[in-house]
């Protein structure tokens, strides 16, 4: 593609192709399987957030982003920042399955000397565009990448995924204020709106905790800051592809995609419970999770 323009995805083609949808849904399922397997193996890490983000990560890494896994430093690649860095294993699983590194390496997650640190460390793993882990920062770095692409005449798009709890950080709104000033329509912030944070305020929500925002709050805030806001069911692959495709067709504003998701999506006993943000998994729970994800332990897929 030519420098200076961020070409949109071909409208309609990938989005309407049922085989393509099936391929991406399978990628998302495999991401979830590898997330559960790696966290079970490490006896540490996070489950709820990576599982809520899996479908979007699959869409980005297997369809939407212009990337070259065999050339992770390709200068004209799209950039991606997982600002909710605690969901790192979800990103690692997507990258491994996409071919950035061997899937087997996922079992080194969280281990000493691993390239797959508990929170992403760009100095260790090629293909990571930014380190993260301290919440609220990724969107600023993504803004810098989008602005840098503009200044250097590159048709690069910067994608950043935030948590909804993360949107309580003040820095997020500093970036939200600044990015529209530069008309950065090559910047897309995806908010994984799973309605739960690590613990949350006490109240009459699920498990006695309140969601990070009231309904409609996120979309209203991003719009008020001058962003184009798109909303989507973050587990509906055709809808995700359609919205991310729309996000690539800039209108002079940065785009915020509010993705409505379920924390722990894909494992019945985790869905919608805040404590699966960080809880580790027991052996019998592991078996149930893998069975529900279509990869019963003991079969070829679960034997590794």
């Amino acid at each position, binding site marked *: 593609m030519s420098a200076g323009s961020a070409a949109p995805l071909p409208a309609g083609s990938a989005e309407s192709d049922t085989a393509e949808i099936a391929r991406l849904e399978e990628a998302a399922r495999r991401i979830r399987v590898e997330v559960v397997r790696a966290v079970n193996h490490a006896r540490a890490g996070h489950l709820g957030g990576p599982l809520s983000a899996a479908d979007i990560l699959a869409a980005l890494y297997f369809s939407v982003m212009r990337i070259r896994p065999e050339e992770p430093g390709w*200068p004209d690649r799209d*950039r991606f920042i997982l600002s909710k860095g605690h969901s790192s294993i979800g990103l690692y699983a997507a990258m491994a399955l996409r071919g950035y590194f061997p899937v087997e390496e996922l079992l080194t997650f969280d281990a000493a000397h691993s390239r797959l640190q508990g929170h992403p*460390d*760009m*100095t260790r793993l090629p293909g990571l*565009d*930014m*380190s*993260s*882990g*301290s919440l*609220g*920062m*990724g*969107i*600023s*770095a*993504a*803004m*810098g*990448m*989008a*602005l*840098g*692409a503009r*200044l*250097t005449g*590159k048709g*690069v798009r*910067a994608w950043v995924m935030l948590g909804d709890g993360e949107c309580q950080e*003040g*820095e997020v709104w*500093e*970036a939200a*204020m*600044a990015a529209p*000033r530069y008309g950065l329509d090559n910047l897309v912030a995806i908010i994984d709106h799973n309605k739960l944070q690590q613990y949350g305020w006490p109240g009459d929500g699920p498990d006695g905790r309140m969601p990070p925002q009231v309904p409609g709050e996120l979309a209203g805030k991003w719009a008020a800051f001058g962003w184009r806001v798109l909303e989507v069911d973050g587990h509906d692959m055709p809808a995700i592809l359609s919205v991310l495709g729309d996000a690539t067709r800039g209108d002079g504003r940065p785009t915020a995609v509010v993705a409505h998701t379920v924390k722990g999506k894909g494992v019945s006993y985790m869905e919608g419970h805040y404590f699966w943000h960080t809880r580790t998994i027991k052996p019998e729970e592991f078996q149930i999770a893998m069975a529900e994800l279509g990869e019963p332990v003991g079969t070829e897929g679960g034997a590794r």
Partner: protein
Amino acid sequence: MTLPMGRAMREVFGETVAALAAEDPRIVMLDGDVGSSTRADIFEKAHPDRYLQMGIAEQNMMGVAAGLSTMGLIPFVSTFVSFAVVRPLDQIRVLIAQTGANVKITPGYAGMFTGQTGMSHIIVDDLAIMRAMPGMVTVAPADDVEADLALRWAASYRGPCYVRIVRDATQRLFDTSYRFELGKAVVVREGRDVTLMATGTQTPRVVDAAELLAARGVDAHVLHVPTLKPLDDDAIVAAANRTGRVITVEEHTVLGGLGGAVAEVLGERRPTQLNRIGLQDTYVQSGPNDELLDIYGLSAARVAEQVLAILGRA
């Protein structure tokens, strides 16, 4: 005989970075809405397309700088020291220091000369904080000549660095033959009786103090330490060997800055009687520059007095 006045370091900052940018299209300037004070506006006039107003949002500014650096640009980040170090410290840590980002943190209004602002705007511990951060080069130039050279060095260095810039005109220590070298301390006065070590714009006042001491029969050796990290351990040990007695002087808290750094080196390599002149674990009030120097014991006369007292010659 006192050292002459030089130009205001902030004017040199705007001009030097603008000149560097004329030669290197990768250089951009990020401003936290104080460009008319820090003189980032000089850069703006020369390169309006590469002047990036970030508004009153310093945390975001540091993150944007990190992102820009990954696109091959060389961001200079400018605001007041008081808002460039502590407020966005976590962004500097995670996005710049931990990633080795090629970002130049070059804030103005270092030290006590801030235009009578008071303690919210006078940061007393920037050198201690920045030098404690793994991966962060920390530089405090003595005058306009050294500031120019340090900024030129920063542009050529690939990695994160902190260069503190002073607002007002201060005394000139160096002539144009001076060559700044990262991590090198420089002897600016030879002497035999006591070694005075100083950093930043305090060094010229210490050189003046040494002249006052000479009139009292004390021959002071003066070592200027512009780079707090990497520190010139060998020069510090050599200067201690020279006289067997060391006094550090800094426009900064004595905790963790030059005094702390020298104590670490001498404690490990050459235990030496050491005294630390500087801000004694206190904040700084607003007031005219000369009055502040006297109040906090950092004028040439007050430094000389304290040295004499320490040496039992008062």
